[in-house]
């Protein structure tokens, strides 16, 4: 069978197929997305509940990380599947911080860890509920509002927590040569995790404002409409 139509025939049929492919996700994809988002929301709720209970039981922040470590690891790994839904640039740094934190025992009792874990937890619960409800076309205004308002505090909180954690872990990374490869070796390659972390920290300077102001602009677009409607009434 020839790959191209015979000379003189139209190419209309060809463009039809591509046109159909452009439409939104089918039923199966939507189902997958809904299940994924419901599971993620539930997971983060479990972590949040775990945090609160552990705090009430212990009366202090120390060791709080251990109590939620397992579910946190599980759901953060699950968040890697996020790539199948949409890309999120700060997930990379978060994953990186996460790797570091899970290996470095000393860092786990740091307040900075609690800071960003709390920020993430709340953010993720809201975000995954937002996606779930959106997919089901039943989005309560409260969830939408929360998603586009809480970030004002949660983003700086999360970023501060992450940066403090990375900073606290730097000496350990340097001392143990964590995740690092040195020369000479037969692949003529080297990697210094310590320097890499410093680069990551510096990269927050351009990246965070972009992300933050993107959310601010999104907020105006998403929440702005409803304000106009209420004025008209």
């Amino acid at each position, binding site marked *: 069978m020839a790959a*191209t139509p015979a*000379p003189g025939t139209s*190419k209309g049929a060809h463009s039809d197929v591509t046109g159909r492919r452009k439409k939104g996700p089918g039923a199966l994809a939507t189902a997958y997305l809904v299940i994924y988002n419901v599971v993620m929301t539930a997971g983060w709720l479990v972590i949040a509940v775990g945090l609160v209970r552990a705090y009430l039981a212990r009366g202090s922040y120390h060791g709080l990380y251990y109590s939620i470590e397992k579910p946190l690891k599980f759901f953060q790994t699950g968040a890697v599947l996020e790539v199948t839904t949409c890309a999120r640039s700060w997930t990379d740094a978060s994953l990186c911080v996460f790797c570091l934190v899970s290996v470095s025992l000393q860092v786990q009792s740091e307040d900075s860890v609690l800071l960003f874990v709390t920020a993430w937890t709340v953010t993720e619960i809201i975000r995954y509920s937002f996606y779930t409800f959106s997919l089901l076309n039943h989005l309560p205004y409260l969830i939408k509002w929360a998603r586009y308002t809480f970030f004002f505090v949660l983003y700086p909180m999360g970023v501060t927590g992450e940066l403090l954690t990375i900073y606290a872990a730097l000496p350990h990374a340097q001392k143990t040569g964590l995740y690092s490869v040195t*020369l*000479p070796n*037969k*692949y*003529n*390659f080297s990697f210094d995790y310590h320097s890499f972390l410093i680069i990551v920290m510096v990269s927050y300077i351009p990246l965070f404002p972009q992300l933050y102001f993107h959310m601010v602009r999104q907020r105006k677009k998403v929440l702005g409409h409803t304000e106009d409607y209420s004025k008209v009434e």
Partner: protein
Amino acid sequence: MLKSTGVGFMEKVQPPAKRKPAKKAKKAVVFFEVEILDAKTKDKLCFLDKVEPNATIGEIKSMFHKNHPQWYPARQSIRLDPKGKSLKDEDVLQHLPVGTTATFYFRDLGSQISWVTVFLTEYTGPLVIYLMFYFRVPFIYAPKYDFTTSKHWVVHLACMCHSFHYMKRLLETLFVHRFSHGTMPLRNIFKNCTYYWGFAAWMAYYINHPLYTPPIYGEQQIRLALILFLFCQIGNFSIHIALRNLRPPGSKTRKIPYPTKNPFTWIFLLVSCPNYTYELGSWLGFTLMTQCLPVAFFTLVGFIQMTVWAKGKHRSYLKEFRDYPPLRSPILPFIL
């Protein structure tokens, strides 16, 4: 019949022979009016009256530029539909689906820079940067190694190959390539230079490092790698020449490339973009020669990008030419 002549019902038509001899045969010329609106805001940006029906989009762009000096023709995107495709400079006004008052939509493409400038800049960087690492300029390696040379002969060979490759690219840019588009957006130069210069520095750092480890299989591996590299460099150059010869100077015609007398072009039988195929081969050769992981990464990333471009080009060929040879693949024979 009366309607189609454009002449009034009762008017007597003067026989052309009785008129004073004119330079051109006088025809009723219907001038067009052109209005140009902003594609986003729909504001009326420009109104041109008495536009010749055989005016090209390029000429209209020049007229628009006179009204708005900040928007030189290269940064204008003129389209029939606000969200549609850009019209080409060669498109003729009267052949477009417009009435005698044509409405076009304008989009600013942003500051533009010429392709030649971008190519020259992005290729000169790697040439110079690699040599800085090769000569072990201070502040790269430990001070005791400053201005020393490697004891491994493959490192000298690699330097020659890398330098040759980029010199070839520079010369091709100046003397061989015929570009379809004059310009690209200015921000591309930053993106492209970061890519080329960054990778060049990364690769050069390891190859010219005092602790560099030569290939495991020694001379055999290096010889094979060099043959592959040179073969593909010649191949790549042959394809560039063949593509250049498809297109007369100053024209933007597109034709299907075919194998020529040069055996290196016979790959056209199986592949749409053999220049990319040969480029991949060259870098595989260089990877094998240096046995360096960063070089392998560079080859991989380049391969991915070239595959995307090859698939796009292949698709354009298929769309444009009904009789395009069905045996051809975009970049890898029968595979990709």
